[in-house]
């Protein structure tokens, strides 16, 4: 065994606490790095990753079986890298569309023998693949809880005279079908199309390129054989819209986590080497060459670095996978495997940072003579630090506190790194807290505008419809105990001049404004005249409209103009529409014949009223009414609040570990001073106060700087995230920074610092001092 290795091993053994700290910090930082990089990676291209992993189809094509044979389709391979099919395809018209969340249109059912294959591998996330005729798997993004909710009720689908038992749910990145049955079943249903799934060679990054490849494939096939095809880019665009909300949030946490991890590792390792200068001097005096000394220290830092990096990366991978999986699962992007480069970055990158952090001070020691190195191991005693200590000694502060306030100035480099970590810790916590507050406010608006309870008349094909008129239903609801507000809505589609698509107009009466729609106005004002409407942001974005615009509408030959006077965050449930006053209904709609089931009622109950009890009361009062509970948080809020809490806590813990390390190093370097102070009567409580104050001061500064940074991050990232979801947020959900929120957040820096400092400070207070005082 070489002398270098022996000296390094001895150093590791002798400095057990420091070695443990480096290992622990590297472990947590590796975990944070993996989570952060995985978030950044996931946020960069979640669709592309899953698309690649699942061998998504570049084009989903439907052919006419009357014009082309299966053999011809199989043979057509120009420009095709991989193909699946032909699969029999049929469009079914379900008899009972209201049971479960079936799309409000006919569903495309494809006969596939299995969910795998070279193209469009499907994720059967619940149940199993159909193995016999009469069975169907439906296409839905994964749901967390299958015990209740709409999917739980979907046990069968009846269409075209057959009833298919739902045996599972699957999700495919290519959106190639709404359901899958066995090939035998689809043959029995007499397929009207043949589906081919293609993966093409070459660059297919544009719709034009995909179409060109499709032309290549279909060249040689009978004219008119291709009924239709959908390029993957359409699905990708839809996915980008859904994911747009998550990505800025994930990326922000990712960047913050990465920077904090690098800062802390650098601080801990360089501090460990600096505190070992004296040992370096001794090694040099013993005859170690400068190169050998540097190697000893690099080895000393590497052992815990490697020991921490490997389990840290694994923990981070497991945590990151769970976190991202949770975030993206609802979109069907369940393939959240951590990329190889993330593993590489954690397993090599963090130890590399450790080595570089160790190398910089070790090279300084390399240049020092043995005598200089021996005396350089203690804190610097010159310059600004001395002036600050002197000024503090003349203040009225308790001496333990004033001594503590001066400590950070002795090691400005270490102080800067510790403070930077604290600052970013506070920034993260502030951002996470702001995000949670914003989400809560958005959820409150959602709950408010949804009403606590939704009521609609049952259509005749779902039971006995109510015999009450809309006015009577409204009267019934208003008469029930616990009713606070009732809004009544009915909508219709009016032809819009200059557009092929009709525009939906929702007419409302009752306390519509008070239900929360007026409170969430982003711009403009509430309607005050029959020709005035307010519109939700997504409708305005979709139609290219803005407040002040006029929309010419027509119904049964009756023409009129609606003036948009306000913009709301969102309108009543269902497709977006212009919100108009009830009085406008007869003005703009020629023949407003509305069935009881066309009315939608929103009810808000008084505080303390049981929503479940109210729902039961409505059902008991009129069985012809469909009534449901609208309360409860949405999945998005829960997921984002969950991962922001986890990451906030993780980064705060890492920052606290950085503080812990700094105090432990300070205590080690100043053990003689501490011994002397105790010898002249400094009590253990005063020692703790001094050490904790030194970090609490940094916590205050970190808090004061980190808070505005967190607020700015929130102000910048949250609207970006909202615009990804095509939503504009009202100022009220962004201005969440009341004193009740801000003051605890400023104290977060102090809290992290104090928690991190407490343990080593207490250890310093209990330190046996006799030995250090009598020996130089």
């Amino acid at each position: 065994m070489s002398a270098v290795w022996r000296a390094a091993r001895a150093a590791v053994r002798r400095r057990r606490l420091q070695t443990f700290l480096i290992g622990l910090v590297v472990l947590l930082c590796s975990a944070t790095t993996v989570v952060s990089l995985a978030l950044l990676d996931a946020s960069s291209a979640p669709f592309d990753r899953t698309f690649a992993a699942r061998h998504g189809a570049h084009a989903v094509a439907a052919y006419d079986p009357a014009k082309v044979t299966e053999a011809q389709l199989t043979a057509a391979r120009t420009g095709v890298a991989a193909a699946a099919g032909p699969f029999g395809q049929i469009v079914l018209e379900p008899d009972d569309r209201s049971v479960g969340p079936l799309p409000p249109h006919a569903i495309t059912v494809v006969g596939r023998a299995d969910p795998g294959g070279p193209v469009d591998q499907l994720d059967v996330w619940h149940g199993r693949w159909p193995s016999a005729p009469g069975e169907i798997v439906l296409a839905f993004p994964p749901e967390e809880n299958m015990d209740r909710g709409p999917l739980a009720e979907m046990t069968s689908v009846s269409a075209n005279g057959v009833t298919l038992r739902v045996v599972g749910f699957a999700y495919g990145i290519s959106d190639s079908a709404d359901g899958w049955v066995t090939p035998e079943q689809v043959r029995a249903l007499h397929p009207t199309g043949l589906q081919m799934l293609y993966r093409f060679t070459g660059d297919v990054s544009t719709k034009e390129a995909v179409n060109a490849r499709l032309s290549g494939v279909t060249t040689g096939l009978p004219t008119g054989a291709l009924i239709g095809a959908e390029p993957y880019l359409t699905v990708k665009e839809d996915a980008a819209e859904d994911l747009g909300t998550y990505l800025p949030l994930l990326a922000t946490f990712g960047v913050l986590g990465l920077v904090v991890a690098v800062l802390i590792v650098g601080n801990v390792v360089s501090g460990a080497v600096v505190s070992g200068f004296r040992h370096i001097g001794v090694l040099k005096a013993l005859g170690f060459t400068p190169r050998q000394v540097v190697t000893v220290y690099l080895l000393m830092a590497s052992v815990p670095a490697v020991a921490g990096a490997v389990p840290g990366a694994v923990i981070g991978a497991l945590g990151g996978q769970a976190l991202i999986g949770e975030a993206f699962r609802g979109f069907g992007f369940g393939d959240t495997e951590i990329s190889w480069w993330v593993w590489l970055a954690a397993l090599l990158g963090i130890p590399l940072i450790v080595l570089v952090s160790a190398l910089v001070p070790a090279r300084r020691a390399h240049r020092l003579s043995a005598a200089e190195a021996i005396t350089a191991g203690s804190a610097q005693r010159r310059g600004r630090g001395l002036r600050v200590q002197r000024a503090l000694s003349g203040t009225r502060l308790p001496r333990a506190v004033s001594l503590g306030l001066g400590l950070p100035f002795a090691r400005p480099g270490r102080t800067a790194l510790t403070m930077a970590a604290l600052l970013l810790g506070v920034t993260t916590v502030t951002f996470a807290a702001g995000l949670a507050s914003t989400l809560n406010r958005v959820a409150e608006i959602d709950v408010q505008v949804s009403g606590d309870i939704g009521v609609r008349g049952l259509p005749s094909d779902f039971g006995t419809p109510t015999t009450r008129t809309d006015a009577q239903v409204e009267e019934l609801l208003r008469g029930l105990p616990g009713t606070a507000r009732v809004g009544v809505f009915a909508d219709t589609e009016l032809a819009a001049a200059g557009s092929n698509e009709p525009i939906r107009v929702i007419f409302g009466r009752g306390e519509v404004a008070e239900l929360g729609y007026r409170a969430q106005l982003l711009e403009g004002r509430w309607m005050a005249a029959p020709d005035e409407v307010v519109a939700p942001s997504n409708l305005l974005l979709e139609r290219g409209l803005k407040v002040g615009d006029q929309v010419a509408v027509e119904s049964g030959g009756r023409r009129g103009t609606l003036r948009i006077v306000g913009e709301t965050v969102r309108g009543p449930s269902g497709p977006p529409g212009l919100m108009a006053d009830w009085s406008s209904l007869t003005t703009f709609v020629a023949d407003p014949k509305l069935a009881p089931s066309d009315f939608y009622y929103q009810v808000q109950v008084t505080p303390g009223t049981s929503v479940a009890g109210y729902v039961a009361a409505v059902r008991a009062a009129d069985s012809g009414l469909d009534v449901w509970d609208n309360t409860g948080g949405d999945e998005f809020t829960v997921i984002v609040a969950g991962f922001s809490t986890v990451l906030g806590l993780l980064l705060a813990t890492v920052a606290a570990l950085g503080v812990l390390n700094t105090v432990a190093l300070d205590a080690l370097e100043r053990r003689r001073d501490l011994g002397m102070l105790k010898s002249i009567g400094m009590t253990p409580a005063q020692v703790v106060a001094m050490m904790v104050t030194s970090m609490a001061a940094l916590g205050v500064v970190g808090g004061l700087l980190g808070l505005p940074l967190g607020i700015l991050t929130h102000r910048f990232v949250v609207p970006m995230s909202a615009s990804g979801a095509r939503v504009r947020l009202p100022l009220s959900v962004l201005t969440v920074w009341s004193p009740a929120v801000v003051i605890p957040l400023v104290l977060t820096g102090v809290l992290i610092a104090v928690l991190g400092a407490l343990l080593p400070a207490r250890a310093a207070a209990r330190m046996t001092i006799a030995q250090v005082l009598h020996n130089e």
Partner: protein
Amino acid sequence: MTDQKPVVRLDGVRKEYGETVALDGVSLEIRSGEAVAVMGPSGCGKSTLLNMIAGLDRPTGGTIEVHGERVDAMNETKLALFRRHHLGMIFQFFNLLDDLPALDNVALAAQLTGSKAGPARKRALELLDELGIADRRNIYPAALSGGERQRVAVARALMNRPALLLADEPTGALDSKAGEQVMDLLLDLNQIGQTLLIVTHDERLAHRCASRLVEMGDGRIARESALERS
């Protein structure tokens, strides 16, 4: 100058570090106004004895009374307060805070008791003046000579008017001239009534400053004798 009231009373004090016995049933009394020198070869237990009296370390057995209080039975906080008010300590390597100038190093002892900076600095300056280094009050320890540093350490030790001054090799890191100055200083202090316990290898220091010599060997008191100051 001595009276019969013991400032320090050790009864059967034993200290073990693992299997090593550092003190083996040491009993000793130091009366108020006495100057006692403890001598002996390295590892005989003299520094351990001083640590026990100062409450810097705890005995394995026996009792230690200082100024009428059982030091061995005190918790850490009580010990700190006790040291603050009743003990002064001088070390071989001075143990000054390098970030503070001489004056603030001395004032620190009073400031820890809650004294305000102004009065504490005033008293510190008086002490530095008495010790002849008032003009060096704004100098940091690194720029002071060894003798000056030890004077600052003595001033700090005297800041709270301790009943007992403990000195551990006070001249061990000084050249002969500075050592002489410190010896004179300790002698002067004893002559005005300061009780002293000096742990030293330096026979000259013992004979110059102490009125009684305690010689130790293998963790025990081998011999006690009265000294005629030279």
